[in-house]
C-alpha cells in the first residue's frame, strides 16, 4: 500500500561550526557560520524514503519553517528524494509550540499516515516538537527511534528501514533508545516518530537528485495563513558561554598520574 509521510528539515548551524556568543549576550555570532539540515531531521527524511521504497511507493512531504533561506534545506531533502516541499514563511524567533502548531495544521491538510521528525534540533536542543504534535493530533508517539543493528551492519548498507509498519498500516513497531537499553514499542497509527542518531545513516544527495530537485514544487504558507499564533512564548533573555575549564597538564607516566590523582585532585 503506498504510504504518505511528513518529515521536517529545520535549518540549523552546521554541527562542526564553532558557536560564539555576541558581545551583548543577546545571540550568537552569525558571521562565518554554515547552515545545514538538522541532522536528526535528515535521519527522518532517510527513514521516510526507505519506508516508501519498501512499501511500494508513496509520498514524502518535507516541511521547513523560517525565512527563504530554508529553501536550501528543503532542496536538500528534495534532492535526497522527497516528493514535495512546504515552506512556512516566518521571520524571527519561533517556539516549539508554534512549530508544532504549524505542523499540526499541515498534517490536517496533507493527511499523511505518519510523521517522522528529528528528536531535537541541534540549535535549541529542546526535544519537544514531536511530542506536542502527537498530543495535539491525538496520535501515538514513538520518540528516540533507533535500531538494534549497528550503523555498519549489512542491513544498513542495503538501506532497509528500521521502523516496522504493519502491512495494513494499522500499527508501527519502533525500537527506542531508553535508559538502560533498547525498548520496543508498538504504536497505533497514525503516529509521530522522532529519530535518534542511530536509526540510519542518511544517503547523500546525488548530483542527478540535486538537478531534479530544481523542478520539484515548494508550496508556501505562513503561520498566520495556517491559523497559528506565531508569537514566541519562550524569550531568551541572555546567552553566555559555559564556564571554561582550567588548562590541564601532561604527566609523563602512570605513576605520576596516580600521584596527581591522589594528592592534587583527591579523586582516588
Amino acid at each position, binding site marked *: 500500500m503506498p504510504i504518505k509521510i511528513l518529515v521536517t528539515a529545520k535549518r540549523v548551524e552546521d554541527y*562542526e561550526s564553532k558557536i560564539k556568543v555576541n558581545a551583548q549576550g543577546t545571540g550568537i555570532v552569525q558571521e562565518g557560520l554554515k547552515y545545514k539540515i538538522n541532522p536528526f531531521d535528515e535521519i527522518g527524511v532517510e527513514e521516510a524514503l526507505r519506508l516508501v521504497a519498501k512499501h511500494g511507493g508513496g509520498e514524502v512531504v518535507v516541511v521547513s519553517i523560517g525565512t527563504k533561506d530554508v529553501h536550501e534545506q528543503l532542496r536538500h531533502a528534495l534532492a535526497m528524494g522527497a516528493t514535495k516541499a512546504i515552506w512556512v514563511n516566518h521571520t524571527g524567533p519561533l517556539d516549539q509550540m508554534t512549530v508544532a502548531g504549524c505542523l499540526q495544521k499541515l498534517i490536517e491538510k496533507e493527511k499523511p499516515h505518519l510523521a517522522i521528525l528529528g528528536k531535537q534540533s541541534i540549535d535549541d536542543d529542546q526535544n519537544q516538537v514531536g511530542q506536542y504534535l502527537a498530543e495535539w493530533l491525538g496520535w501515538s508517539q514513538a520518540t528516540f527511534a533507533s535500531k538494534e543493528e549497528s550503523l555498519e551492519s549489512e542491513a544498513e548498507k542495503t538501506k532497509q528501514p528500521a521502523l516496522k509498519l504493519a502491512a495494513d498500516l494499522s500499527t508501527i513497531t519502533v525500537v527506542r533508545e531508553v535508559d538502560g537499553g533498547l525498548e520496543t514499542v508498538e504504536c497505533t497509527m497514525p503516529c509521530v516518530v522522532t529519530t535518534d542518531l542511530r536509526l540510519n545513516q542518511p544517503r547523500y544527495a546525488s548530483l542527478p537528485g540535486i538537478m531534479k530537485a530544481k523542478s520539484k514544487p515548494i508550496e508556501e504558507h505562513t503561520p498566520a495563513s495556517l491559523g497559528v499564533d506565531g508569537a514566541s512564548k519562550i524569550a531568551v533573555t541572555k546567552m553566555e558561554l559555559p564556564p571554561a575549564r582550567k588548562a590541564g597538564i601532561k604527566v609523563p607516566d602512570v605513576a605520576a598520574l596516580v600521584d596527581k590523582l591522589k594528592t592534587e585532585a583527591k579523586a582516588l
Partner: protein
Amino acid sequence: MSNVLIVVEAQPDGSLRKATLNALTAGAQIAAKTGGELHAVVLAKDAGPLANVVKEYGVKVVHAGSGAHLAQFTADAVAPAVAELAVAIKASYVGVAATQAGRDVMPRIAARLKAAMASEILSVVGSSAADLQFTRPMWAGAVIATVKLSTPIVCFSARTTEFPQAQKAGSGEVRAFTPAAPAKALQKVVSFKEVKSARPALTEARVVVSGGRGTKGDFKPIEGLADELGAAVGASRAVCDAGWQPNDLQVGQTGKVVAPQLYIAAGISGAIQHIAGMKGSKTIVAINKDGEAPIFQVADYGLVGDLFKALPELQAAVKAAK
C-alpha cells in the same frame, strides 16, 4: 499560589530512580522562590508503595495515581493524568528529571496544558514567580541560555547532574487519586532489551572509564580498570556506531551526559560532541597515543601513551593502593 508538581518516573520494579531526587531539588528551589508548595505525582499500576518512599524527601503532597492503564510509563497514559492533576492542584510549574522517560513524557504533558517548556534546565534564576527564569544549554552546551517562559503554566525537565539529590526531610502527605483511563491505549511496550551490567549506571557513577576508537573494540583494559575503581564504563560515539559497544554506553551530546567526580577517557580523540557529554566532570584524565588529540585540551591530566599499556598499569596501581 505557584505550586510545583514533579513527575516521578515509575520504574518497572517499583523502585525509586535516583534522578527523581535531583528533579525534586529543582522543584524545591522553584517552590522556595515562588512561595508555592512542592508536590509530586507517582503514576503506576499501584502507586502507593513508591509514593510512600517519595514523601520522605521534603515533598508537601505526593499524589498517588493508580490504574491498570498506568502499568507502563507511556506518554499517552501519563500525560492526561498529570495534566488533570496539575490543573486540580493549581500547579504553575510541572517538571521531571531529564531521563529518557522524562524527555519523552513531559512535552506531551505540556502540550495538554498549552504550556511552554524548558528542557534540560541547569539552574533556576530569579527570586519570585514574576522574574523566574531558567538556564539551559543550547548548541550542545556551547551556549548557556537564560530563558523566560510566558505561559500560565510552565513545564521543565531538569538535568540531573546540575541539581543535588534531595535529602530526606520529614514526611509529606500521600493522596491517592484515580486518573481516568483513556478510551484506548495508543502505544504499548512489547519488549525491553536491557544492557546488563554489574557496574553502576553511567549517569549515576562516581567514576567513569570510557573507551574510544583507540581500543579497536577491545574493552578489556577499560572494563578491568572500571571494575577496580567501582566505575561505570562509557564509550565514544565511534565505538557505538561500529557496534563494538551498546549504544547505551555512549557518552556525548547524543548519548548520556555525565558529570562524575573522575572521568577517564582512553583512546578517545575528543570530538566536540563527546566533550559536550563529559566536560562537567570534576576531574578529567585523558590517555591517548596522539599527543595532539583535542581531548587533552579539556583534560586535567593527560598521559600520552598506549592505553593497552597504561590502563593495566593504572589498574595495578589502584589495586596496590587499596
